[in-house]
């Protein structure tokens, strides 16, 4: 069996100082060579690992024959954002984990192939979609993240008149304000939004549901509503010193960098503190993105402080590797106790404690326990907290009867229906912070449920 084709990357030293995309994508020969590794299993396990069930052997077979147009058409039957998913899906725990070749350690690089096909199509220019005949039904989609983009596209294809409401001044949700340019170029997100506009979706930014209009008003104005409001409310640790100057939530740090383009300050006017020594608390994708952004802003040393071990890091493997190559320091089994204050209420350092892994908890993960007497101080001038987010609460004002869990997530049934008759929900707002592809899967399901509801009402 031929070895898995390596992804060409920008040189680590160089890329650690710029915001250009890190992974450069396969060349055509590489893509065909990688596609040729697929056994086209008759009972393809890989498909079971994909939340939207992309016909993986199907599109790969077309790639082998050099039919990239056919391949992208196959992918798009179930995945409307392949250029995004090919880049950011945690493939190693989804499609690629179940690939039969994974047992030997080298699954087919499904994500990279998907990305190749999507980029191939983008280079040629995506043909404007045909509009479906109107059903005369009106649907409101709240939020403009992957869940909403998918739901809006599917609903528009069914012929419904869709209006999308987004609180921020730009669309894309986390794809725009959270995931940095070097991992997901914003031009790709923009093109996807253009595509749904061509399908007839009316996109309104600067429009907050719960403020300009309540959900109850929206339900009266439209025949059905989809809520894809995400989970963007940052959590803090509640430790001493967390409000000092120089302590950011990852969301604030990344929003300044991505949405407001602070990395191009002062050409773009939004400032950001460029630290010399930066500590990022957390071990997920968000923490990796914040750490690598801080490095690119010119920091001398950036450390990830994470309370569990290497194997427990929730971030994508590939991004952990990328971060290490770029020189991010991993301080594992370490937890912050308090943030130390310097002059003028700025940050001077972080007092941390070492952790040991104890017995497995309910989630099956071994929970960390502090080691007494192991306190130590790490110098820092910037601290970024990336320990998770909860659902955006603003939608809840003026939404009588919308059932939410104690965690603040919107409660839905197996067909994405909320407790209110013509309202569906999906994505991070329902699951808590999860993945792009699961949000898309939920948007797709909700679109089906809404279309069915509209046929009967």
């Amino acid at each position, binding site marked *: 069996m031929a070895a898995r084709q390596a992804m060409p990357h920008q040189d680590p030293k160089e890329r650690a100082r710029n915001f250009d995309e890190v992974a450069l994508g396969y060349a055509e020969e590489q893509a065909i060579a990688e596609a040729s590794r697929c056994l086209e299993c008759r009972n393809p396990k890989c498909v079971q690992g994909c939340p939207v069930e992309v016909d993986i052997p199907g599109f790969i077979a077309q790639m082998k024959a050099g039919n990239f147009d056919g391949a992208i058409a196959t992918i798009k039957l179930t995945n409307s954002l392949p250029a995004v998913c090919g880049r950011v899906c945690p493939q190693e725990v989804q499609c690629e984990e179940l690939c039969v070749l994974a047992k030997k350690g080298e699954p087919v690089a499904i994500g990279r192939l998907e990305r190749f096909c999507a980029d191939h199509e983008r280079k040629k220019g995506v043909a404007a979609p045909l509009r479906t005949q109107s059903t005369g039904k009106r649907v409101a989609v709240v939020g403009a993240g992957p869940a909403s983009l998918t739901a809006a596209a599917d609903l528009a294809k069914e012929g419904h008149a869709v209006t999308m409401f987004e*609180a921020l001044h730009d669309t894309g949700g986390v794809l725009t304000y959270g995931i940095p340019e070097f991992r997901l170029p914003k031009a790709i997100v923009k093109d996807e939004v253009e595509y749904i506009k061509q399908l007839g979706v009316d996109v309104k930014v600067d*429009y907050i549901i719960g403020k300009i209009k309540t959900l109850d008003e929206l339900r009266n104005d439209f025949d059905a509503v989809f809520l894809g409001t995400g989970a963007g409310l940052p959590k803090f640790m509640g430790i001493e010193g967390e*409000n000092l100057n120089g302590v950011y939530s990852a*969301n604030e740090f990344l*929003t300044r960098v991505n949405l*407001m383009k602070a990395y191009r*300050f*002062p050409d773009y*006017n939004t400032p950001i*503190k460029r630290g010399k020594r930066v500590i990022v608390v957390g071990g997920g994708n968000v923490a990796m993105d914040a750490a690598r952004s801080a490095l690119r802003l010119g920091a001398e040393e950036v450390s990830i402080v994470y309370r569990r071990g290497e194997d427990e890091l929730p971030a994508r493997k590939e991004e952990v590797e990328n971060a290490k190559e770029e020189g991010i320091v991993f301080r594992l089994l370490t937890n912050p106790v308090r943030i130390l204050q310097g002059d003028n209420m700025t940050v001077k350092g972080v007092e941390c404690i070492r952790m040991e892994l104890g017995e497995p908890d309910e989630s099956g993960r071994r929970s960390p326990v502090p080691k007494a007497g192991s306190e130590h101080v790490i110098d820092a001038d910037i601290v970024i907290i990336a320990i998770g987010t909860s659902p955006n609460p603003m939608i809840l004002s003026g939404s009588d009867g919308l059932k939410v869990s104690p965690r603040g997530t919107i409660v839905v049934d197996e067909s994405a229906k909320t407790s209110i008759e013509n309202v569906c929900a999906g994505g991070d707002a329902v699951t808590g912070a999860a993945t792009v592809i699961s949000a898309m899967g939920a948007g797709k399901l909700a679109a089906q449920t809404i279309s069915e509801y509209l046929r009967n009402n």
Partner: protein
Amino acid sequence: MSYTILEKKQIAPQVHLMKVLAPDVARAAKAGQFIILRIDETSERIPLTIADFDADEGYVTIIFQEMGKTTKQLAKMTDRDVLLDFVGPLGKPADVRKLGTVILVGGGVGIAPVYPQVKAYRDAGNKVISVIGARNKDLLILEDEMQAASDELHIATDDGSRGHHGFVTDVAKKILDSGEKIARIVVIGPPILMKVAAGMTAPYGVETIVSLNPIMIDGTGMCGGCRVSVGGETKFACVDGPEFDAHKVDFNLLMSRLGLYRPEEAQCQETHQCTCRSGN
């Protein structure tokens, strides 16, 4: 999106009033709320209080003081120019109820956000005593409007060029000392004024409300940049506020966080001025 400026005028040195066409915001706005605007693609998002609004005509009035790059750029705009973004109404509306007699204190451009509250408290059946002040008489804004909307209007200037020679807090203290029963004091202005006012009213045990102005980005509760400490708890001013119980607010933290980007702000303005001087 784009939002047309219907009217723009200077109302005091470096203080400007703007009516912006934003029918959706105007329809939903309530006293105490604010908007966030962005002039163009490269601008910062800046928060400004809703100083007035007209749901029928579909406009929102903002009053701002030239501080740095964005507000200076905004000051140069004129009628029919357009703003790229104008989102709101943000924050919780002021908790206006019938309480009896209330004192509303506005300092500097803080008079602007106080004005809609004066009307709202009046409409709710309260007796409203307003106290407004500024460094000198030229900087005093909305005097006629405040006169018309209030039951009583007191004026103070730091240099004595108009009204009481001294601070608005002195005047408010005199009213408290006069023995009139005051149900609540609302104070809006520079953080230092709000801090002093909180200290002044504490011994009287009068409920004191301030409207906090920390640095904000999204205004939707998504970044935590606007966090303030109230009664030892961390709150996000954009969604939990902007109004809080003055006696519980950590003003020192607020003031230090407001100064966070001072070096960057200076740099931003410098670059801006350089390009202007180069003649293009």
